[in-house]
């Protein structure tokens, strides 16, 4: 499968977009499903229905629903999707050899989370009934994408690019690992939000060890799987601070930057593989501020330079608290002037 196609299919499945796999021979459409099913996150509850083939019956952890009562099936699925908001695992429905009636009574009422395989007659109904966003054409099959792709699918592009030389097992491992990370991080953020009113993007980046793009993916997948938009509860990095971080990233001796507003971490960027909990910066700030109590007034704004054997710490206390871990050998005077110049723009 070409990489561009893989990216689109992975993105669609991860985002629970609706897919129809069409072929003249239903066997070909079903086989296509088994070629792409490892893109479906493993924590989702797979539900197979329709003309379930023998091969599908032996898959681990799959629920098989075999009923002729399409009306009841449609109602049951609607309830399953509604329950996801209450914490039940998200479902992924696969309907083998779906007919027109299947769409009318079961799938048309479900706005996400299903894949259907079908043959020519049903495909014509699908094309006439849905706004097809994209068609992926294979030699013997076509995938109809019924939902738009998200604006940014760079994480999926990177996953496919990184695994393009790998076999299916390795590919599955790497993709599933990322999907599980996103899933678990969403749960952790939800938990965190239950004890705090708001959290900052930088706090989450540091504590969960995730980058900005992954955080966006967590929010998007959360909306698709739980219908819950947590973005309103996460304070993003102010744009002027982002510009500051970009400029600082050009200085090769900078290993880590953290910016605090009061005790809140509002920006965090790590350029080297070092472990330094940012709370240490706040501890140092407090140890400087307390000198006022001894009659030693350092002043409203101050900066601290701490040289140690292997690395240096630089803290610039202004309207924000700018904290840096620096490699040895940096010219402090030049660096401080650069920081001061950039801070003037904020």
């Amino acid at each position, binding site marked *: 499968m070409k990489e561009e196609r893989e990216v689109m299919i992975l993105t669609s499945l991860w985002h629970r977009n609706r897919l129809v796999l069409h072929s003249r021979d239903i066997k070909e459409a079903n086989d296509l499903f088994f070629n792409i099913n490892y893109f479906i996150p493993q924590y989702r509850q797979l539900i197979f229905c329709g003309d379930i083939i023998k091969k599908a019956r032996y898959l681990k952890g799959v629920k098989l629903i075999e009923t002729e009562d399409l009306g009841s099936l449609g109602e049951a699925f609607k309830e399953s999707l509604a329950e996801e908001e209450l914490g039940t695992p998200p479902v992924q429905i696969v309907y083998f050899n779906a007919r027109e009636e299947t769409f009318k009574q079961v799938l048309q009422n479900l706005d996400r989370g299903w894949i259907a395989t079908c043959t020519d007659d049903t495909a014509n109904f699908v094309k006439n009934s849905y706004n097809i966003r994209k068609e992926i054409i294979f030699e013997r099959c076509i995938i109809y994408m019924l939902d738009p792709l998200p604006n940014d699918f760079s994480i999926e592009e990177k996953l496919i690019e990184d695994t393009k030389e790998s076999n299916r097992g390795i590919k599955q491992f790497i993709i599933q690992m990322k999907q599980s990370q996103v899933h678990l991080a969403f749960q952790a953020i939800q938990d965190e939000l239950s004890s705090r009113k708001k959290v900052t993007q930088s706090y989450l980046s540091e504590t969960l060890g995730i980058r900005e793009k992954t955080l966006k993916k967590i929010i998007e997948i959360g909306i698709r799987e739980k219908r819950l938009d947590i973005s309103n509860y996460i304070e993003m990095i102010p744009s002027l601070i982002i510009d500051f971080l970009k400029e600082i990233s050009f200085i090769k001796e900078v290993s880590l930057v953290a910016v605090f507003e009061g005790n809140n971490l509002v920006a965090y960027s790590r350029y080297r593989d070092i472990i330094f909990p940012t709370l240490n910066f706040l501890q140092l700030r407090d140890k400087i501020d307390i000198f006022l109590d001894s*009659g030693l007034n350092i002043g409203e704004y101050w900066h601290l330079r701490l040289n140690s054997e292997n690395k240096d710490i630089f803290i610039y206390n202004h309207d924000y608290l700018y904290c840096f871990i620096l490699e040895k050998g940096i010219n402090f005077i030049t660096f401080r002037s650069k920081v001061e110049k950039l801070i003037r723009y904020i």
Partner: protein
Amino acid sequence: MVEQSEINSILDELLSISESEGALILSSDGSIIGSKLKNDFIKSKLVKYFSELMATVISITSKVNFGEPEQIFVQGTERKIFVHEVKEKNVYVILLGTSDMNTGFASIAIEKIIPTLKRIVQ
């Protein structure tokens, strides 16, 4: 044993820098080896806060494998602070001054007294 007259002479040398306001020599356990303050600072609190600052710094740098702290320099809109570790002696030299104290001269003065301090502190 520390010869107090030599300590006093070291402190005087540090305080000869224009705009300096005080100098302290502390051991790592927080005891005062010598101190001279020109200003109305509360000495007991200064000693306590510098000891706590150094304990925090040592704790942080050791936990993250940054090695031993060597020096700390704080420059505020009102004041400057130098803290220099005297290696192998577990002693800190602290120099306080106004924001107009010349940073370069202060550093040179501290470097200059280190060999004497190393010699007289057991």
